[in-house]
């Protein structure tokens, strides 16, 4: 970071000195140099402060499609999942051991968790969807902690270093954890949004969904009914705002914000002086392992809980 600032500042000074007109006095030249140097230093500072840019840098293009480093990492994660699942369930045994045991424990654990929230019929619809989210998010979150992800890449060449391909600051890493790209989390939340509405209509029917959201959900006599109906219509407007807007947006931004924030925190810790970096980064790494696992769990559990609020009959039976 510091090196990058120094490098750019010295470059700026050279350019400014070169551009000084010959007729200028010494004091004027010095002043103009100072003024010009000020700008590059500032921009270098800004560039160095943003350790992980929000926009994933583009590595190369395939035809009209730009390929970013987070996309490359997504493909690797997807390939990894296919290989792991195929290897562990290639030859299924009666008594599971090793990898098969792990996969079975994972799947049975989640089936039990979903059984607490959803009806058996809905579990059958939601389970493959939510489970794939969980496995994908866990593995892509944990790539955040691998050495080389986000730290190997292209940048400005560092002329002061003794190493052959040294750079001052990695501005274009080859790999970036998929979930630190908001495009991926927003896409996942979008898929969830469509599927959630589809399941709600499939379970309740189109009229049933409207009655479920806007209908009166408590026992009432016929005198109180119009008042309650008005009240529940207003509650339904708020609830539909939550279902249509707040839930998917919060779902996407929670995952993105957590993992992106963690990645930034780790990069900041590792950009300190050596001893301080070790002291800050080791606790941060343990914290990040927990956050990565927890956020995958939370994303999946919220998907299940949100579907559960729309696909249930328990509070409608009072109405009639």
């Amino acid at each position: 970071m510091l090196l990058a600032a120094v490098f750019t500042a010295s470059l700026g000074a050279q350019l400014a000195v070169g551009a000084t007109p010959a007729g200028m006095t010494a004091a004027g030249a010095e002043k103009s140099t100072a003024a010009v140097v000020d700008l590059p230093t500032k921009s270098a500072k800004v560039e160095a402060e943003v350790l992980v840019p929000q926009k994933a840098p583009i590595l190369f293009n395939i035809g009209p499609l730009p390929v970013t480093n987070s996309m490359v990492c997504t493909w690797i994660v997807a390939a990894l999942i296919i290989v792991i699942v195929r290897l562990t369930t290639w030859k299924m045994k009666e008594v599971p051991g090793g990898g098969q045991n792990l996969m079975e424990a994972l799947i049975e654990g989640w089936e039990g968790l979903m059984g607490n929230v959803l009806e058996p019929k809905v579990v059958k619809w939601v389970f493959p969807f939510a489970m794939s989210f969980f496995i994908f998010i866990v593995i892509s979150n944990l790539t955040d902690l691998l050495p080389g992800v986000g730290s190997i890449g292209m940048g400005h060449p560092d002329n002061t270093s003794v190493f052959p391909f040294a750079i001052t600051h990695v501005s274009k890493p080859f790999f970036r954890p998929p979930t630190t790209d908001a495009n991926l989390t927003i896409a996942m939340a979008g898929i969830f949004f469509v599927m959630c509405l589809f399941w709600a209509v499939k379970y309740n029917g189109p009229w049933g969904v409207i009655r479920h959201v806007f209908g009166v959900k408590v026992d009432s006599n016929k005198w109180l009914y119009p008042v309650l109906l008005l009240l529940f219509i207003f509650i339904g407007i708020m609830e539909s705002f939550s279902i249509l807007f707040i839930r998917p947006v919060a779902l996407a931004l929670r995952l993105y914000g957590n993992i992106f924030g963690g990645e930034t925190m780790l990069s900041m810790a590792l950009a300190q002086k050596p001893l301080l970096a070790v002291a800050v980064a080791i606790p941060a790494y343990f914290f990040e392992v927990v956050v990565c696992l927890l956020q995958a769990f939370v994303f999946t559990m919220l998907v299940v809980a949100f579907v559960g609020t729309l696909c249930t009959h328990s509070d409608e039976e009072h109405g009639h």
Partner: protein
Amino acid sequence: MLAELTGNIHIGLAFGGAAIGIGIAAAGGVMAIGRNPGAFGKVFTTMLIGMALAEGLAILAWIVIGNK
């Protein structure tokens, strides 16, 4: 008293609120598990969802106001 405050105070306030919410959720969860250890799974799951919702608002605030 007039003083100028600079920095990301709004984000600090948002995360402070989220931290209080998460703390309350954790305290409630610990108390519930202490009274009824058998219900650990259900209490823990519900607690985590509550924590995630509290934290989600802070992250929303961070992304909306923090990255101008």
